[in-house]
């Protein structure tokens, strides 16, 4: 997946949850990505964030710590 496409997809999710109260929005973004993105897509996203996260919505950046499955 190209970086542009990944950023677009992540931002689309953030845009939906932006209307919700902040904590709910961050959790909403994280849960959605956790539930629907395959691990390699999540790894690509995390790598992009580690590299600065250019182009990503703030909500996505805030959700970064919650992207791995809950134990």
């Amino acid at each position, binding site marked *: *997946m*190209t970086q542009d*496409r990944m950023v677009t*997809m992540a931002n689309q999710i953030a*845009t939906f949850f932006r*209307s919700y109260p902040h904590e709910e929005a961050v959790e909403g973004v994280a849960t959605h990505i956790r539930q629907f993105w*395959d*691990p*390699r897509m999540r790894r690509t996203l995390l790598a992009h964030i580690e590299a600065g996260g250019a182009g990503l919505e703030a909500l996505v950046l805030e959700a970064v710590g919650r992207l791995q*499955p809950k134990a």
Partner: protein
Amino acid sequence: MALIKELDTGTPIRIADRTVSLVIDGRTVTVPEGTSVMAAGSMMGTQIPKLCATDMLEPFGSCRLCLVEIEGRKGTPASCTTPVEAGMVVRTQTDRLAKLRKGVMELYISDHPLDCLTCAANGDCELQDMAGVVGLRDVRYGYEGANHLDAEKDLSNPYFSFDPAKCIVCSRCVRACEEVQGTFALTISARGFESAVSPGGTDFLGSECVSCGACVQACPTATLIEKSVVEAGQPEHSVVTTCAYCGVGCSFKAEMQGEKVVRMVPFKEGKANEGHSCVKGRFAWGYATHKDRITKPMVREKITDPWRETTWDEAIGRAASEFKRIQAQYGVDSIGGITSSRCTNEETFLVQKLIRTAFGNNNVDTCARVCHSPTGYGLKQTFGTSAGTQDFKSVEKSDVILVIGANPTDGHPVFASRMKRRLREGARLIVADPRRIDLVKTPHVEADYHLQLLPGTNVALINAIAHVVVTEGLVNEAFVRERCDLAHFEVWARFIAEERNSPEACQSLTGVLAADVRAAARLYATGGNSAIYYGLGVTEHSQGSTMVMGMANLAMATGNIGHDGVGVNPLRGQNNVQGACDMGSFPHEFSGYRHVSDDATRDMFEHLWGRPLSREPGLRIPNMLDEAVDGTFKGLYIQGEDIAQSDPNTQHVVAGLEAMECVVIQDIFLNETAKYAHVFLPGSSFLEKDGTFTNAERRISRVRKVMTPLAGVADWEVTVALSRALGYEMNYTHPSQIMDEIAALTPTFAGVSYDRIDELGSIQWPCNEKAPAGTPIMHVDRFVRGKGQFMITEFVPTQERTGPRFPLILTTGRILSQYNVGAQTRRTENVVWHGEDVLEIHPFDAESRGVRDGDLVALASRSGEISLRALVTERMQPGVVYTTFHHAETGANVVTTEYSDWATNCPEYKVTAVEVRRTNHLSEWQERHRVDEHDLTRIAPPAEAAE
């Protein structure tokens, strides 16, 4: 097996709270109030002679054959038009009646060809039957008088003929066209002796006839008869099965001669269609034995090699060894599979099982990804389950019908007929669609409001409608308080009441007059039972899931959930798209919509399947293709889908397929995707296997085998063989055992079995201890998720924008006579109605580009370019163009983009910025496609194959 002859009660059996008892021929019978004397007689086993009556139609009283005597009444009233009354004493057989009936028959036969022995209806002719019943032995009037015996046959329709010489002018065909189909294409022209059935003064093919077959079915003689019967003769046995076209899931009798289908006749007891059909299910089944069917397994090293026919063992072995090699080299997650919405529940369940067990990952997806995946997501969030709320019958109780982004008369014609019947009875209609679809104005039906919005603005429109409901005090507060999560409702209500969601504020976005939105909203909220029916015009957007939730919000806010006549109802595209979703075809969930990370669910599957299962979601179809291009996804098993034609941005799809090292296709034809495949496993049509389909109303119906699979095995057996070759044993001897496993693992299917389906005819899930006979209407007392959940649905414009380079918006869809990628319907006579994809364009846009009707035009987007013929029509609004994707050589999806729904990745087929210009040549892609059509589909002759 014998030919199934359904009882024809002559007139419909009425549904009434009260019953009436009467005496017919000395026996007392009790029937619902409003039933005719004819139907009452039929219910007690007495067949009163009839010709113009049939129970699919309202009584007409024209043939005068069903006369009876009723004590205390003068004359001999027609039993079809006489309702029963308490205490009525009826005689159906007297000397006087016999004389009258014989006289009537003499008149009919005096103007009818005496060619019974060579007539195609011989053995299935009601006129012939009635002649026998009344004991006709001669015709006093002779045959020399004026007659219609030289009337010319109309053979223009590819599927049935019309022979006016045999017509008795009973009007059954005319009434069937009106009452059952709702098209009003037929009439009786002239009067008296000159009166004749007429398709509007032209031939059948040139008329408004939609070839649904209702007239043919209603005809009591050989006047209207299937050409297949003319050619083959009468069938000798029949098997009830389920249509393999759209999501209506019509029940049919496959009428057979041995293993040869003679005709498909809609089954009256089928609850999805109640005896009606459309041109596809009724007539377009010839593809099943088309010469293009591939019946031998094939393999090749490279996609540029010719295919080599081989044995099942070699083909399965090759697929398995390649998948194993790829996983060893690139990792366990480097392969995946796609299940088919055209295959049965059992086959689909097996493919996802194979992927989760034998492949050891969750890289399974299905074509619902590109159609109704937002329905699954949106309705699960709001209501708690990923399915429509009603049965089709519910529409008979609707007072207001809101159709959004659906074109039922083309896409779901049999349900559309049911809907139109209700509309003719007086239900009100709101259509929200960028195009002026037929339903907006069709005979005796006219939409109260056509909200002709701009593509991509659905959410703004639904928000504006909800805004009116909330701000004008139209919320059903009692329903919301009792049934919904109040905290979320209040948050939503505050959001939706904001001025930016008002019809006036949204008018500039949607292009719909605020006054119309307000009026439509008031009608929906206050008009009685209001039902929403929607299609891919809702889901195939970047905000598809948001729109589904927006509709659910509206239905909850107005209390239009949980009883007859209401609901949120997806009109599913393919025959088993609901079932494919139910069966766990999505990469994140098991059957019954349970997430793979749920430990308890996974434990249950692991225990029964004997393999550890991944708790991580797998790749969706677009993700698979993206990862293939990136080099991390290398192998794909596709059962019954053609992503190279159906999925968006064809070049990207092909790039993904070309990047894979092993693509295995299981299909009945060498489809577009097979051009990029290495192993071809010949599939079986719906006529060749046992199983079940689940339609848009969650109705599980049996598919029954009527012929031996052309390739020797059913699809489910191929999956079992592949699984075994991969080292995971599956042990089934019949699909019923697969359904038993589905029931054991899926709470909503717990009560489903083949025996139970046979007993009930069909079953709507959930079917379990709480609902042993199934569930026609969902969320009756409570939502599946408990309290209904209002979701905030902020309108977000799509990123696909028009501009100077691409100033028009393209939206795509399908038409009545063709189906999906056309692989089936293009191989039938249906091509007479739609031989190529055309571009619908408004006269204004056409004129400003110098485009005339029929011109070849180039259609270009930032994804690609194709050429096709223009159809200049005012169905379109200025600025919006439309085409279909039924023909591979057109390549409509060369133009569509990779933009997709935010939640599900469902492609945004409905909004592509394009430009149109005149051209005199095919596009570069189309020229290349012509070459590939030859180069990538070659099959080596047997001699070469033997080397």
